[in-house]
């Protein structure tokens, strides 16, 4: 219990929140980096995934990308980028690593969501005379929405975690509080930093779950009844 009390004391000490190395600044760095990189990754991955899914091409690429993304250690990429010439340019190694690791889950899930959109419905939409873009925006994307959001959530978890690891490669963010704590053998600070990171990660995840429900283009109707069995069977939704 001494550790928890110590961490609490660390967190409630005003001095630890102020200044360049304080919680407020580190938290702002963390959130800013995560948000910018997530937006960048979405801008890159979603158009590609939606377009490939619409055309029905590039499935192998979409699945393999996710597998490769999993096998490559985030920490290694962060350090490699920091030691590369890019490392002399401030936050760029972190930004690039964050985007690189956010793209695979976004792309793979959005692509599979598009491919899993009920073919009969898509055919019916075509038969009704909808054009390609109309089918894409009014039928396929709404049907792919749950998996697109799953991808977004995975990517966000990934980005928040990677932004934490950036501290190991000399970057900013909340991870710095943990690494500084390890450096000073200050267990209270280590635990306090870890708690901050965990709370941030869970809060972001919670916010996304909420946003997913509120933004669902087919809220409360069709999806709840018609596609429930299909979604319940392979891996339960969280």
């Amino acid at each position, binding site marked *: 219990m001494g*550790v928890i009390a110590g961490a609490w004391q660390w967190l409630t000490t005003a001095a630890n929140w102020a200044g360049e190395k304080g919680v407020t600044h580190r938290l702002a760095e963390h959130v800013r980096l995560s948000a910018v990189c997530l937006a960048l990754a979405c801008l890159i991955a979603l158009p590609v995934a939606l377009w490939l899914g619409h055309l029905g091409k590039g*499935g192998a690429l979409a*699945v393999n990308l*996710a*597998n490769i993304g*999993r*096998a*490559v*250690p*985030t*920490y*290694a*990429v962060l*350090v*490699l980028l*920091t*030691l590369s010439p890019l490392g002399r340019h401030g936050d760029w190694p972190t930004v690039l690593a964050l985007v690189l*690791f956010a793209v*695979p*889950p976004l792309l*793979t*899930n959005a692509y*599979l969501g598009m491919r*899993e959109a009920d073919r009969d419905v898509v055919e019916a939409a075509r038969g009704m005379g909808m054009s390609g873009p109309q089918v894409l925006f009014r039928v396929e994307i709404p049907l792919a929405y749950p*998996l697109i959001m*799953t*991808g977004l959530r*995975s990517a966000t*978890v*990934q980005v*928040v*975690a*990677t932004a*934490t*690891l950036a*501290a*190991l*490669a*000399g970057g900013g963010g909340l*991870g710095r509080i*943990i*690494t500084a*704590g*390890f450096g000073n053998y200050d*267990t209270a600070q*280590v*635990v306090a*930093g*870890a*708690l901050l*990171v*965990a709370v941030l*990660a*869970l809060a972001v*995840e919670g916010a996304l779950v909420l946003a997913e429900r509120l933004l669902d283009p087919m809220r409360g109707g069709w999806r709840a009844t018609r596609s429930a069995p299909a979604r319940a*069977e*392979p*891996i*339960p939704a*969280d």
Partner: protein
Amino acid sequence: MSGRAGGVNCLEANDWVCGEYLRTRSQELTDATVQHIGITAVSVALGLLLAFPLALVARRWRGAAGPVLGLTTVLYTIPSLAMFALLTPVFGVSAAVVVTGLVLYSLTILVRNLLAGLQAVPAGVREAARGMGYGPVRLLFGVELPLAIPALVAGLRIATVSTVAMTTVGSVVGYGGLGNLIASGMAGFFKAEVLTASVLCVLLALVADVLLMALQRLLTPWTRAGGRAGVRSRAVAWARGRARAVKAVG
């Protein structure tokens, strides 16, 4: 880059690829690799051991499925650095910190896939086995588990590959296998050390993946027979399972 032929000079020039580094530090590299494999293997094995009863509980009592899956998902959301930091006061600075963290992460994937595999056993198959006089234990080990092997191995592959990658973060407490070399390479600005350790780490993940795939083929000879339709639907199910399980590696 003077490369492998560069001899001692490549160490002085701090090249990314350096044969001299491989020669002079081969012991260090071997030790780190062995530690990496050990931590990964123990973590995934313990994860599997724990996932098994959890999946059975989640299947037996529907009310338990939500909390079990929810809790493992929450654990997955916590970044690895924070997880190791939180476990440090509990275990002290030791390999147990890293192993426990990695076990908790692998649980998310393993419980889900095991549960999905068990639930996907056709009811008719279960009925037939019961009709033949199979009791619950024999039904589980003789019929349901073998049929769940493809889903289980799919989960095992994802968990293993992620664990190999995440073990590197264990270097914060000094037990990161190849991650320790990445950390010391970072501290000393030693490019060859970082690149070599990173490449070895990716190779380890790929080798583990291939070995597990081979293991599945050995364990489920029946999946190799069967018509095209069967192969296709399995491939689709596999791709879906993978996509759903795409999760963070951090």
